[in-house]
């Protein structure tokens, strides 16, 4: 114990023992976010206490709660240790528009996002797709293949979502660790290829279209 403490406190400035990286797992209610995060990491709930905004009026039942002005939102939160010095954190991001007040905080510094889609309720992931396109954050759409869901041609789903060619769409099984691993690998590869495609920082740019299609997958 004593030696462990002196390791940490020995130097004047603390040297990072690891670097923390964030990937968001977005998607509509019931799309399988919890399942996906749980398939590849030990998932823990993360409580956030948020001020109630008018966005929740009519949706969050406040009758009998009196002067309650905050609401607790529990997020899924998973941690994957990759090698000695890298920790990857997965944050479930509630995709319903009424949670949009917390999206910026979750997206802060994120590498990219997996947007889980359920073909039976494809519209549920529109808000997430719009958000990440606007933020220019790399993302992968992962269609969670539920056993009882009809199967569609991925190209049709791409069209329905009006995806830019630079954002891959993959089929996955959120329960299966190998499948989830594949989704995350596709996302990180996408991030890396975007990086090499545009050397300069993207700051100050406002027009999204051409650069994304140039990547043509």
């Amino acid at each position: 114990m004593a030696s462990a403490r002196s390791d940490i406190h020995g130097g004047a400035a603390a040297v990072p023992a690891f670097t923390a990286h964030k990937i968001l797992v977005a998607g509509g209610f019931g799309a399988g976010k919890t399942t996906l995060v749980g398939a590849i990491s030990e998932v823990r709930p993360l409580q956030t206490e948020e001020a109630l905004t008018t966005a929740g009026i009519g949706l969050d039942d406040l009758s009998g709660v009196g002067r309650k002005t905050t609401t607790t939102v529990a997020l899924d939160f998973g941690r994957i240790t990759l090698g000695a010095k890298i920790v990857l954190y997965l944050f479930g991001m509630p995709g319903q528009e009424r949670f949009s007040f917390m999206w910026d905080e979750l997206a802060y510094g994120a590498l990219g996002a997996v947007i889980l889609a359920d073909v039976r309720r494809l519209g549920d992931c529109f808000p997430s797709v719009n958000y990440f396109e606007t933020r220019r954050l790399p993302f992968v759409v992962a269609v969670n293949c539920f056993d009882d869901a009809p199967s569609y041609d991925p190209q049709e789903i791409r069209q329905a979502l009006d995806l830019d060619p630079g954002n891959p769409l993959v089929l996955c099984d959120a329960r299966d660790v190998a499948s989830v691993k594949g989704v995350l690998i596709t996302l990180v590869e996408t991030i890396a290829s975007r990086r090499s495609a545009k050397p300069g920082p993207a700051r100050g740019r406002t027009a999204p279209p051409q650069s994304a299609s140039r990547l043509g997958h």
Partner: protein
Amino acid sequence: MPADDTFPQRESGPVVRPYAVTGGRTEPADGDVLRLLTVLVATGRPLPTDDPARLAPEHHRLLALCRRQMTLADLAADTALPVGVVRVLMADLTELGAITVVAQRSADQKTGNDVLKEILNGLRAL
């Protein structure tokens, strides 16, 4: 038994409001915002004995967890405290010099290609 003797259960929400441990403060004392993945560690500097900040037991729990480097999100998950509460308490401890920020990412900081490669290799090896 009169009704007002019975303990008000679920309808009243948690008995202790989440921000009670912060003394009702919802904003950290100092200006730097601690992000979900800000890495923090204890400095080993002893807390003041006169306890001007009126440290809560939660401060001490958090400080104990920070014997090794921890992210804000890990601290919140480990203590089951809301992120906003942990943010305020950790800012108190930072102000007292008991906690220091090890790594804080800026909004537009890009992860280097070498790190991306390491992440990819790590994922493939899972």
